[in-house]
């Protein structure tokens, strides 16, 4: 992995700290490497412009994710995005740096096959580690809706992943 220079500004620090995970989050929401990179760059640009609105005490990860979710949603609404079949197969996964460390992609692909809203919730909760309350706030839906989305996602994954994450 490339060694990034020491961050010099708040924006550079944000990019150094969250760049990889935000880019991967965008990929999981958009299923497209180029779109994900565009979305991540757009997110940091919007974050830069909105930095003065970040309130002290507000969790900056949740704040960044709110921007990213909106950027990805805008992209998903685009006509061309919707024309393309975005189902993911193992071949679609970005090339890993160390192939020998590549885990079996079955559980990951099962999550990727979830409908957009449920996948978004799963990614924010399980990948970004945001609480359901934070997700409710940043996606502007009631906490009960987030819980319901997560519950049905887990129910669906449970059927697909018996013997994987979900044999308990």
């Amino acid at each position, binding site marked *: 992995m*490339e060694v*990034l*220079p020491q961050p010099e500004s*708040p*924006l550079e620090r944000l990019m150094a700290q969250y*760049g*990889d995970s935000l880019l*991967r989050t965008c990929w999981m929401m958009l299923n497209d490497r180029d779109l994900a*990179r565009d979305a*991540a*760059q757009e997110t940091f*640009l919007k974050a*830069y412009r909105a*930095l*003065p609105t970040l*309130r*002290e*005490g*507000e*969790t*900056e990860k*949740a704040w960044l994710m*709110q921007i990213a979710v*909106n950027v990805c949603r*805008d992209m*998903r*609404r685009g*006509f061309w995005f*919707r024309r393309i079949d975005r189902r993911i197969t193992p071949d679609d996964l*970005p*090339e*890993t*740096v*160390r192939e020998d*460390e590549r*885990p079996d*992609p079955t559980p*990951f692909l099962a999550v990727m096959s*979830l*409908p*957009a809203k449920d996948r978004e919730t799963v990614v924010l909760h*399980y*990948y970004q*580690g*945001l*609480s*359901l*309350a*934070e997700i409710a706030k940043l996606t*502007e*839906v009631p906490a009960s809706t987030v*819980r*319901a*989305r997560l519950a*049905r*996602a887990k129910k669906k994954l449970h059927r697909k992943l018996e013997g994987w*994450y*979900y*044999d*308990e």
Partner: protein
Amino acid sequence: MNERFHDDADRLLNGLAWTRQDTQAVLAATKGERPEMKKKIRAGLVLAVSLLLVAAVALAIGLSKSPEYAVLEKARQTVCEQYGLKPEWLTMFNTTTGRVAGKQIVLFDVTSSTFVQPDAVGKYTVTIAADRQATASWSHDNVDPSLWQNADLTASVWGAPQLEQMFARYTAYRTWWAEHENVYELPLAQQTALFAELQQTLAPLALPPECSARTGDTAPLATPTPVPVPAAALTAAKEALSAKYALNDDMLSLFTLNASVDSSDGQPVWIVAYNPVDYDNPGEADWRWLDFLSKRLGNYQVQVRQSDNTVVQVQWSLEGEKGSDTYTENNWAQADAYDARILPWVLSLLRANAPIIARYPEDQTEWFSVQDAAAYDQAFRDAGFNANVYNHGLPQPGDLTQEQALQCAQQAMREAYSLTDEQLKPYTLTASYLLDQGGTWQISFYSGDGMGNVDLRAADGEVQTVQLDSGVIGNG
């Protein structure tokens, strides 16, 4: 699942990394518009506050149990007995099961959060042999016990004494939120005082990151600005869709209209696009249906020349897919592309189920009554949808009644996690009857900060699964 999904995702996507070029591209875009920082930015990475649970569990006296459930119950009992843990503490642990050389292996670990740190807590592994003999081990077995026996929460290794202390604080934290759920509506000074009080209760554990005074507003979601398309161009587009694909206004109600202008070749044209009903539309709630439907409705696009409203191109993204000729009213769901012959059946299905959906709050299909869920799924099955997916039904004669199933589920949950009636009180229960495996009652538990479910074989009440996720720590 939390940590494993995170790790798998990072390993699978590690070829996707933020680069120096990305940084430079963003910095270049900001040139000339660097704003003054008005507020100090928090530097710390927000810890995952969710404490995932996932343990399947013990069984209640008087309840029968499935073999899979029995394995987890055994593992749970073993680790509790051997290390002095209490069942309710295990709601803070993730559980992973596997089989090695004919033995069942059950692993208990935790996800990093304000309340628990994986390195300190370590991992418990239970091995169950074919003869049901079980032994547990702890990743800190070789550590000097004096490191953790003093119940000090600042210790680098946490044994049972620390887990007890931690769980007491976690319980206090949940209680605090139950009593202060509207904290963010209070004046900032009052919020600060309340959070300081909470910090004292949790000490020496740190206050979770969301526990800080703030105003509750959030910027509204950005929504695309629709481009208004002139009536004449729209009429031309609809006529073209009718002529080529036999679409009428009723069928087009399944789509959303998006219009834009393309001037790339010097002759400006309206791009009139009909896309499947937006899956972000909160009014469309059923995840099983929407993704499926979008793929089979496809996208229509008509290009209309701006100068004279002449249609220059009409396209459907599913052109050439398996046609609808062989499908009937009873199996149309299986077609690859829903064209004008199928769309009236699609509309009929939607309209038949609309009264059911209207009875429930937005996006809450989880709350369908057993009868409504059965009727809803039956309509899908009648159209040829997968019966394994649309699997809600009605209990058969001889099955547990809904009331009996609810009682069994509560008993199973109480006993599995050593919960009191008082602790179960905040949970709202919903019942689903699934046609899977000859009939299964699935009872879901929802509360402000936890959810779980109990699956019971409908015929005799045998417990198939008990799980409770107490990891929803937050302000909601």
